[in-house]
């Protein structure tokens, strides 16, 4: 029992980290960034290249990955999202095409076969009948810190409040003197950086492969749909629902049905409550 609790908490932490950048874009920019999971993939591969191929320190790898993710996010906003002028469908489609292009690019550069990252923090910890890798423990702690930091950032800082304003009503915010374009750029940058960081942790826990973006995208989608737009707290709660559901279904029910429950949850919640369980309109 305690083992389920521990494993559930850890996996949920990882899932929250994966989903948070996606939530951010969805609530501020109101668009589905289907290339979001590509940040994870690119972040993971950059870290692999810097640390495991070039032999540089892990922290350098992480910083480079986050910076590249940031840059990618901002570039995407400038080159794709802004020219399409808020046409949601066009943004969704072009990010989907981009995700497929990035996948092909990764195959081109790194080959098809899966790669494994060294644990960011090696070692294990035995607690209450469960074995915990320090690696995923770090991911969970980082995830909580980031979610907390983001919550604080959005509520307390000038830029964060501007983000809130844009997420509520972009036109209204512009009238009040908020530079919506700049805010969007910042949001895309943050989302990219968070995605890349999540990618390093996700990949260090699972593997690097050119199609590794599909699973985290579905996790992010599930968290956002069930949690509702823009709710950072909702993201955290739903990441736990999904994480625990997965642990419970693999431990107690049937491990092969792992993904089925997540899909049923998405469909079920949306039919019953189309805005998600914690649906709200603004970021917060």
């Amino acid at each position: 029992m305690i083992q389920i609790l521990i494993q559930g908490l850890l996996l949920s932490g990882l899932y929250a980290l994966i989903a948070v950048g996606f939530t951010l874009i969805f609530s501020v920019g109101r668009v589905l960034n289907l290339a979001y999971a590509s940040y994870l993939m690119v972040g993971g591969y950059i870290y692999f290249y810097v640390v495991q191929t070039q032999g540089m320190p892990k922290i350098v790898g992480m910083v480079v990955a986050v910076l590249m993710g940031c840059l990618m996010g901002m570039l995407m906003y400038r080159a794709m999202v802004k020219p399409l002028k808020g046409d949601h469908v066009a943004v969704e489609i072009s990010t989907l095409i981009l995700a497929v292009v990035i996948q092909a690019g990764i195959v081109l550069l790194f080959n098809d076969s899966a790669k494994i990252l060294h644990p960011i923090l090696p070692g294990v910890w035995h607690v209450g009948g469960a074995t915990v890798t320090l690696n995923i423990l770090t991911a969970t702690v980082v995830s909580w810190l980031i979610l907390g930091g983001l919550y604080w950032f959005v509520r307390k800082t000038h830029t964060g409040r501007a983000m809130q304003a844009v997420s509520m009503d972009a036109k209204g915010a512009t009238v009040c003197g908020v530079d919506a374009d700049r805010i969007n750029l910042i949001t895309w940058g943050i989302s990219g950086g968070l995605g890349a960081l999540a990618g390093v942790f996700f990949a260090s826990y699972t593997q690097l492969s050119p199609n590794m973006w599909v699973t985290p995208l579905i996790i992010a989608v599930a968290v956002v749909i069930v949690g509702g737009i823009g709710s950072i707290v909702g993201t955290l709660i739903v990441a736990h629902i999904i994480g625990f559901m997965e642990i419970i279904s693999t431990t107690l029910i049937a491990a092969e049905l792992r993904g089925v429950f997540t899909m049923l949850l998405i469909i079920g919640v949306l039919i019953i409550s189309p805005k998600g369980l914690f649906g709200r309109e603004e970021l917060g």
Partner: protein
Amino acid sequence: MTGISWRHVALWAVFIIFMLLLPEMVSKGTLRTVIFANFLAIFAISWDVISGRTGYISFGHPFLIGIGAYTTAILSYRFGMPVGLSIPLAVCVTMVAGTLFFLPALRVKGSYFALVTLAFMELMYQLVQVIRPDLTGGTRGMSGVTTLARGAVNNYYLSFGLMIVIAVSMWVLMKTRFGTALSAIGMNEESVRGSGLSTTRLKLFAFMVSAMVAGLGGAFYVHYLGSIAPRALFDINFVFTIIVAVLIGGASTIVGPMLGAFFLTFLLEYLRPYLPGAERYFIYGSIALVIYMYQPKGLYEIVMQQWRKYRVVKAGET
């Protein structure tokens, strides 16, 4: 019925005659590519009926195609049912599934709809492998499903016949008030409701039409391929190809999805001799992205613009 002129009929006739003569002009290898383009065109037209027109973007279209394909494959391969019976049954099953698929659409809008349909497809991908693998063949699928015709030429005529019947009937259907109303939903659903039409009923009908076309296409597709596997159908790359075919060709038209399907299939196939490996998918995706970013309304719009320019120049000359 409005808007059907003799010129339209003549253009369709020229196209059909050209396509009927095609086997005389090109190699068998090219015909094989055209067959895939024909099927992609069917799927693209089906997608366009729901998503291109009403603006409800479906990421789960392979869900419908897959149900049609799996139903007829299971019935004919496992139970030895004649194809003449299994295909119509498959189409019916797909239409029922399409109606189920429609239920969330009643409540969900915009990007959420896209996400639910994506969830549907993923669910199907998982279920096909887990539930009754003795019927579905599990992850490896089924190989050796009855094929309807042999050889490139026969299969070409079969696939083209199916495609053109679907294309022309959809084209006619879209010229009716139904088609106009659907496009109006895409522009402003509230105002359609305001004008006294039941948008729910319209959307349901659109879903069933789309499901019927998808089921028909899926069923014939599997009997062309002769094999079926979950990874080939319920796959994000398959969704990608269908959606991009419509959008690159031009949504909300019939010619657009056809144009897009032919363009994409030939682009990928013609890159093969020059870029045999993974570069091919990279270049293919990049070209699609550039075209889409340049003109989100697609090739159809690019062609029409040129045509209008040409007309203006012509008019200026006389």
